[in-house]
């Protein structure tokens, strides 16, 4: 456009020079009464004019007038076009500004700096405040109550007057419906309509701010909860390294957060437990699975305490693995109580066995021996009285018979109290005898199988196994309604394996609230012998008890 205007101006100047040159030439010719130059004479136009001088003057004046009119008209036309173009440009610019102002995605307001009156606001302002433009223009900001804290605005204006602009502002505003929102933006001091004004540009950040506040509050509550919880809590990142510990942890260990960060916490784990602890943690971590482990952790006073540590994987909202969160509980007292219970239980079983053994021995070693002597005395008496009255001989024989029967009964009682066979003949013979006795007494056939059983088994182990068989067979007779039972004794490596199975009605193991005393007693005996016992049973499918115990007895000291 500029080029066009420039071109037109050049054209106009050239035309004017040409006309002016003609005019001067003609005027000079007429004044000197000389004919116009040849070039002029040669021109077609000149040749048209009459040769009369006055006429020529008039003609020339008319021509000059016409040229002037033409020039003025062209200048006017050009000026008008230029003004029109400028007007259009200005109008376009105004429209653009207006559109930008009105449709801006941010709230824009112009208000006077001294009287705090709104001069203009945009659509976004209307949208977030709920006020129409007409409702605010010309009104005082404070009268409308849009600023929740007027002092904030006063301070911002003061800052603007000092610095010219306030690049980061955040303030609370009140919507028309009374709701309080939060806005963030910037402000600038401008001169508008001859007065100092505040141009404010802001965005409604109520929702993210509220979410942020809620998150902060949630985190604060969680932190408070974690710090007041009576458990030791820790947090780790996706690289296995610990990133946070609660107050309880730090109070327990007596170490600082910085000392515990990363793998620092592992310094407090008992050296004997560290390898298994790290292995459990690492394996669970790699599989992103929850874990539970027990280890000893050094307390602030240097004492190692048993803790139960349970960790669960954490995932972000998008499903990304974020690490673990875990909590530890001091279970030392519980473990000690459990060990004490086991110790008492073990002692009770031991004391019971001792007492049974003592009574059995008393019956066998004293009563039975004396009865044997009595029987022998009666026998000798009968032989010595050979030839005496037959009734007396029969009486003596009857007394001998009675004595022998009492001796047999006492021997049986002694055996039931404490099986002498176990001590003198070993587990295999004692268990076989037990099975035979059971079959005879309860009319339930028992299939008895022994495989590779060592000859010498520590007596406590063989007694535990014997008592387990005894208890299991007692349950078979009492509850199973079995037609037959099976007892298997075998040796696998250093372990003795016992199976007692029946084809009875079985029971729902998971449906039982707790095991009966008999089953608990069996488990306890096996545990004390360093082994374990499991019970498998389903309704109508019989029951199978499996126990494994080391052939060499070792006393268990708690768990």
């Amino acid at each position, binding site marked *: 456009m500029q080029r066009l205007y420039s071109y037109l101006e050049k054209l106009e100047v050239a035309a004017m020079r040409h006309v002016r040159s003609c005019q001067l030439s003609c005027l000079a010719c007429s004044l000197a009464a000389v004919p116009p130059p040849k070039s002029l004479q040669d021109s077609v136009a000149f040749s048209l004019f009459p040769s009369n001088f006055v006429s020529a003057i008039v003609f020339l004046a008319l021509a000059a007038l016409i040229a002037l009119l033409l020039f003025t008209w062209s200048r006017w036309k050009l000026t008008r076009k230029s003004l029109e173009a400028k007007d259009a440009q200005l109008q376009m610019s105004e429209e653009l500004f207006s559109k930008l102002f009105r449709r801006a995605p941010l709230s824009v307001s112009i208000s006077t700096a001294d009287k705090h009156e709104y001069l203009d606001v945009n659509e976004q302002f209307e949208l977030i405040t709920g006020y129409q433009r007409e409702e605010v223009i010309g009104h005082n900001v404070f009268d409308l109550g849009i600023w929740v804290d007027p002092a904030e605005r006063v301070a911002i204006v003061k800052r603007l007057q000092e610095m010219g602009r306030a690049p980061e502002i955040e303030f609370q505003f009140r919507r028309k419906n009374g709701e309080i929102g939060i806005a963030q933006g910037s402000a600038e001091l401008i001169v508008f309509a001859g007065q100092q004004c505040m141009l404010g540009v802001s965005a409604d950040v109520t929702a993210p701010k509220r979410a942020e506040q809620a998150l902060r509050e949630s985190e604060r509550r969680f932190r408070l909860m974690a710090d007041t919880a009576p458990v030791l809590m820790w947090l780790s990142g996706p690289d296995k390294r610990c990133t946070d510990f609660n107050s309880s942890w730090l109070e327990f260990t007596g170490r600082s957060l910085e000392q515990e960060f990363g793998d620092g916490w592992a310094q407090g784990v008992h050296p004997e437990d560290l390898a298994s602890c790290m292995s459990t943690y690492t394996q669970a971590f790699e599989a992103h699975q929850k874990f539970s482990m027990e280890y000893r952790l050094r307390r602030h006073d240097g004492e190692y305490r048993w803790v139960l540590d349970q960790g669960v994987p954490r995932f972000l909202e998008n499903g990304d693995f974020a690490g673990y969160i875990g909590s530890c509980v001091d279970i030392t007292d519980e473990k000690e109580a459990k060990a004490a219970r086991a110790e008492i239980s073990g002692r009770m079983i031991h004391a019971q066995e001792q007492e049974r053994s003592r009574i059995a021995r008393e019956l*066998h*070693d004293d009563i*039975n*021996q004396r009865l*044997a002597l009595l*029987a022998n005395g009666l026998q000798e008496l009968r032989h010595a009285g050979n030839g005496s009255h037959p009734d007396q001989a029969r009486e003596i024989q009857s007394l001998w018979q009675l004595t022998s029967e009492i001796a047999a009964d006492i021997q049986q009682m002694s055996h039931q109290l404490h099986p002498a*066979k176990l001590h*003198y*003949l070993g587990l295999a*013979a004692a268990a076989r005898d037990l099975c035979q006795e059971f079959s005879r007494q309860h009319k339930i056939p028992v299939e008895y199988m022994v495989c590779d059983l060592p000859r010498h088994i520590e007596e406590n182990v063989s007694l535990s196994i014997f008592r387990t068989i005894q208890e299991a067979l007692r349950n078979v007779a009492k509850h199973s309604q079995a037609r037959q039972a099976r007892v298997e004794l075998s040796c696998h490596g250093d372990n003795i394996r016992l199976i007692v199975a029946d084809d009875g009605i079985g029971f729902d193991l998971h449906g039982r609230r707790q095991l009966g005393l008999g089953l608990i007693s069996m488990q306890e005996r096996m545990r004390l012998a360093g082994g374990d016992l499991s019970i498998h049973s389903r309704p109508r499918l019989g029951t199978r008890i499996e126990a494994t115990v080391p052939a060499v007895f070792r006393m268990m000291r708690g768990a």
Partner: protein
Amino acid sequence: LQVHRTSVLLADDNSAILNHVTHMLEKDFDVVAAVQDGPSALHKCTSLKPQIVVLDISMGASSGIDVARELHDSGSASKIIFLTVHEDPDFVNAALGAGASAYVVKSRLGSDLLLAIRAALAGKLFVSPSLLYEAH
């Protein structure tokens, strides 16, 4: 004239039985020792080398069967006779398996022990008849 008497060693933890058997046998046999536990029995057998050893099975913590096994394994020439209250075929089998020559129950001591000693000296096995009936 010196008559050769069979030497007998007695081992029983019950002193009443021990006295009774000693009294019963010393008329016909030379009771060289009467002990009350297994280790003593082994010790005396090694030193005295009796022809007959009368052993109880249950002697407190020690077992007569273990003593018999050790004597047998050591090549002892002593004939072993068990004298016990255990009237049970399992014990009889265990005793004979350990190298014993006879098994006598104490309730039949008066009638069976002399028979058992004679049988043993003759190289025969003897078991109290009441047990054989029971086993049968």
